[in-house]
């Protein structure tokens, strides 16, 4: 059977049906999503070693549970959910003893906004991450894929199995909520 490498649905089906090709199919799935998943996690941990560990755990969970995955959501939504939970749990566990070298902020602040100029990129980055955490899963996912990864709607649509119109709506709601969150947080911080 010819494997459609860009079709997660077909790959997952093949994994579930043909055990002899499970390794190959899984490596294809990893190749498709590993890099973007890595940066999702690293933006939260801001540390390579921790990201590496979490990513291992995430793929291990995917490997163990892929046979039970019913494809009610897209494969990427599913692994994003796993990675998000895994990262939160990891940081929660490590909170007290965490002493790792943190990456620089993943954002740059552009000139022209007076309030933003009063904060460092690290501070804004933390606030932004906190704002993303408040979003519903789909909105958070769409926002990150659009804002950080600069994906086109057509690409996100293929990844998440969602129409472009729905993605635009999701992104619009996400931006609005994040803006409100940041405005509130930064003003409170100033006072």
């Amino acid at each position, binding site marked *: 059977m010819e494997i459609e*490498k*860009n079709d997660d649905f077909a790959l997952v089906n093949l994994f579930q049906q043909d055990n002899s090709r499970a*390794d190959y199919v*899984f*490596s294809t799935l*990893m*190749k*498709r999503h*590993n*890099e*973007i998943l*890595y*940066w999702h996690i*690293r933006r939260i941990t801001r540390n*390579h070693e921790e990201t*590496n560990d979490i*990513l*291992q755990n995430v*793929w*291990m969970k995917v*490997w163990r549970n892929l046979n039970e995955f019913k494809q009610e959501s897209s494969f990427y939504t599913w692994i994003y959910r796993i990675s998000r939970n895994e990262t939160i749990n990891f940081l929660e566990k490590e909170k007290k003893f965490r002493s790792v070298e943190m*990456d*620089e*902020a*993943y*954002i*740059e*602040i*552009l*000139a*022209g*906004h*007076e*309030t*933003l100029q009063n904060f460092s990129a690290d501070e*804004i980055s933390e606030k*932004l991450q906190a704002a993303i955490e408040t979003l519903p899963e789909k909105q958070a996912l769409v926002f990150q894929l659009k*804002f*950080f*990864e*600069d*994906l086109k709607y057509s*690409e996100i649509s293929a990844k998440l199995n969602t129409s472009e119109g729905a993605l635009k709506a999701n992104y619009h709601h996400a*931006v609005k909520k*994040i*803006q409100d969150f*940041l*405005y509130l947080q*930064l*003003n409170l911080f100033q006072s």
Partner: protein
Amino acid sequence: MEAKKNILDYIRAKGKVDLRQDYDKPEIKKTYSKPELKQNYFEDFAADFLMKIKSESDENNSQIIDKQTNKQTNKQTKIIFLKPVFWISSIAASIIVIFGINYFLNDNTKLSEISESEILAYVEENSDDFTAEEIQSQIEESVKKKNFKEIDTTKSQLNNKKEGLNEKSIQENQIPQASFNELLDSFSEEDLYLYLNSDEVDLEDLEIL
């Protein structure tokens, strides 16, 4: 109000990841401003991970095989237990063992007892120690003792029985005096007179009384 401007227009993500699937065309990859990663990090990561899960699944498979082997052994054991031959032979073996033990014990008991032949052999060996008279007197004495005991026990049994019977007959023939007096008191003179005049009374009987 400045803050109400779209804040996100002034925040820009540093690096962009190339998400296009054409990995075979490196010229379309973007330059990252993100933290640098080891070259081929993602390829190595995937390879290592797959190695890991392969070895893990091999371990699991061997564990499953071990379990299956154990199951098969258990099955074989179960099958042996289920066969009637096993039960029949085990019952036969246990019967043989029980008989063997019994025989052994009986044999030992017999050894503890003195057999007739042994007594005879003993007497024959030590016949010089006994005179014919002594032996005879011993035999007579033992016979007397035995007979006396037998007679004595028979006599005493008879006596006991007799005593028992006598006591019983006395008890049966005795009429308690108190009840006799009560009976007499219950008759009036008129009753007695009527009784004596009736045909049922025989004068001879009265004389005897």
